[in-house]
Every structure is written in C-alpha cells, then in structure tokens.
C-alpha cells in the first residue's frame, strides 16, 4: 500500500506473500537435529472467510482439490474470532508434501482474488516431552515465528526464543516480537 494511496483514503488490503513457505522443510531438519523437535505432519491455513457466493464456491473447490489425492480429508473449523482454519494431515516425515498442500490452499485463494484474506498458517512440531510447537508463517509480512502454547492462554516464551535462534538461518524470522500473534484455538496444535 503506497503512502499516497493511504493518504487519499484508497488503501487496498495487502496481498499475501506465498513463496517463503517452501523454506519450512529446511527449518524442520534443523529443529529435529538441534532441539529434538519432530514434525507432527499437521499443518493448517488460517484465513478470513468473506461474505458472498464467490468465496463459498472457492472453499468447496479447495477442499475437493486437497481431498483428491486420496490422503486424509482436510478438516475445516471456525475459531472464536471468526477466522476459518483448514487443517491438513500428512505422513509425519513428509514435510514437503504438507507444505505443498498448504501452498495449494494459498494459491487457490490468491487466484480467486482473495489473497488478502490469508492471515497465517502453521506447521506443527512436537518436542521431546510432547511439547507442542507451531512454526507460524505470517502471509502479509512473509516471515515466520515460533508459537509454543503452554496451556490456558500462556505461551512458553523461552522455548520460542530458543527456536528463533535455531531456525534463523533457514527461514526469514519476524523481527518485531509484538507481531508474534498468539494463535489460541488453532486446531491440531
């Protein structure tokens, strides 16, 4: 959004940046080697459902597309903030396949002109003591950050900072800590 557009009151929602998602398999290897965090094979895309027929037609298309490869069907759920999550499950070791699925959702939304509705997506990991960890991708920033829920609306900040140090070379990390959005209620995490 340019400065003049915003000054003239003509701002348009920012479009999503999809490409950085393909760096996740690298980060998964680093996480496994460096901290013993193994991928769970679960990933989800979070987006804002728009009103109108065009959007609901497209949502049906996405689910049909993901379900077509014979794998487990995607699960759609709504969180308490009016955002929709599409959860997809894969073989735990196949992070590339998972990322490809997530990308399929993203590019379908973008091709239908709803790229601005994408909020974030995450790839799930689990630590040595079953500690849950999500590597979250912020579409509008094109950056990642770790999210480690520690029960009852609390997050394990020291673990998150440790992960930040680990994967810093593999994926672009979000530098502003106040943009590390807490994704409470994310399905599968």
């Amino acid at each position: 959004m340019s400065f003049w557009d915003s000054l003239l009151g003509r701002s348009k929602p920012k479009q999503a940046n999809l490409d950085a998602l393909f760096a996740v398999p690298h980060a998964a290897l680093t996480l496994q080697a460096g901290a013993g965090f193994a991928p769970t094979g679960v990933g989800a895309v979070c987006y804002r459902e728009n009103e109108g027929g065009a959007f609901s037609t497209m949502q049906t298309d996405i689910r049909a597309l993901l379900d077509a490869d014979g794998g487990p069907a995607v699960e759609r759920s709504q969180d308490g903030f009016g955002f929709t999550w599409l959860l997809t499950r894969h073989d735990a070791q196949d992070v590339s396949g998972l990322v490809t699925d997530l990308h399929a959702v993203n590019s379908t939304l973008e091709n239908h002109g709803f790229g601005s509705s994408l909020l974030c997506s995450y790839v799930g990991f689990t630590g040595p003591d079953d500690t849950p960890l999500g590597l979250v991708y912020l579409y509008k920033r094109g950056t990642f950050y770790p999210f480690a829920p520690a029960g009852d609306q609390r997050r394990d900040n020291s673990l998150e900072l440790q992960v930040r140090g680990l994967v810093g070379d593999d994926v672009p990390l979000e530098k502003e800590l106040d943009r590390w959005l807490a994704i409470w209620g994310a399905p599968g995490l």
Partner: protein
Amino acid sequence: MGVVGFLLVVLYLGVGAALVVYSNSILIGAIVVGGLAWAQWYFSDKMALASMRARVVTPEQAPELHAMIDRLVALADMPKPRVAIADTELPNAFATGRSPNHSVVCVTTGILRRLDADELEGVLSHELAHVAHRDVAVMTVASALGLLAGFITRWGLYFGGGRDRNSNGVPVWLVVWLVSILVYAISFVLTRTLSRYRELSADRSGAYLTGKPSALASALTKISGDMARIPTRDLRAAGSMNAFFITPAIKSEQFMSIFATHPPLDRRLENLAKVSADLGRPM
C-alpha cells in the same frame, strides 16, 4: 456541533486578529494559529482520551478485544495501536493519534455491550482504516489551512485597505470581518465534505479488510438506531469528539447534510453494499 464549531472559529479568528493588532505583525498571529493546530495534531491521542475519560487497557485487562485487534493488524500488516475503553453508555468508537505508530483505538463500554463479535470487528476495521489513512493528520491540516486562509484574508484586507481608506464607504473593519468569515465558511464546508469522503473511504477499506461489509453495515444501523434513542444531555457532552466517532453522536437531521462530519446512514449502507457486490462477483 456545527454551530458550536463555527462560533469557536469566529472566536479563534478574533484572538488571531487581536494578536495582529496588538503585535502589529502577521508572524506572531500565524505562529499562534499554526502552533495551536500543531498541538491539536501532536497531542490528539492524549486530548481525545482525556475528553472521553478513556483508559488504555492491557491485553490482560481486555484479552478478547486485544486478540481481535491483533488479528486485524496482522491481516492489514500495520503496527498495532494502543487500545482504550471509555466507560460510557454511548455506543461509539474512535481512532486518533498523530501517526500509525502513535495511534489509539478507543471503544466505549456501550458499543461492547451492543454489538456481536462480527459487528465489533467491522467497527474496529473501520477505525484501523482511519489510522492507516492518517485521517487525524489529514483533517488537522485541512482545518488548519481553513483557519489560516481566514486569518490571512483578514490581515491582508486590514493592512491593504488601510492605506487608501474611503471615509464615505462601509467601515473597513466590517468588510474585513465579513470577508474573513466568508473565507472561513467556505473552507468549513469543504473540510466537512472531506471528512465525509474519508468516512466512506474508511468504511470501504475496513470492509475489504474483514471481507464482511454486511457486518459493518449492521453495526452502523444498530449504533445509529441507538444514537437516536439516547438522552441528548449525554450526547451533547460528547459533542466535541464528533469528528472522530464512527457515527456522529448528535442527530444529523438537525443540521443540513452539507455541514455534517459523517455521511448519512443510507449513503454509507449503499457504499458497503457495493463492496459486498464486488466480493460476491466470481473472478
């Protein structure tokens, strides 16, 4: 609001003119007028919060409101504003602050009680659009220009007309006074037109952000309906904040629409219906 604002400016010009007369210099007058406008912009967040008796709340104090704003700013990719709550029954919301990095979004307890989550989100996205569009800065510059225009007209006529004064004509001070009022009146109407345009812009951008123009439309209808029912004494107390509210707190029928800070409800709903139609169109 319209009448009060107009009287305020007559006073403003009077002070400025008195300064020119006593100091014999346009410079000091212009500095005072400019300085006041600057302070109005620079301290806009503090003044607005103080006049609404609002307090800034932390994520612990208002977790749901913060979570909602967190998601909207992540969707819009903008810095997160501070969040404030004003304890009043008046259902309203406003955004203020000198730049997106120093902004505050304030909601009243009345609006929190009346709207459901989708509608509240629509209202918040409208306010975030005001922040992104730098509306406080734009409106301050616009009204300051109007003030300066009136001021300079007055000064120019006073000194220019002073040299070859015609003793048979109308008194010079009267001409000066009338022209400066006229210049201000024109800029007043233009500023209000600009304000209404920016409201429609914020409605549109906010609706595209959430993808739910109808939720904002329903919130506006609800608030406007409530606005008309609330006792006027409470409303007048909030009159000075009108320009930053999501809907004006004083019934717009009382003034001609040309003087209104906000477009009529019909116009706003029509604008949102266009967004809705645009979103529903298959690509």
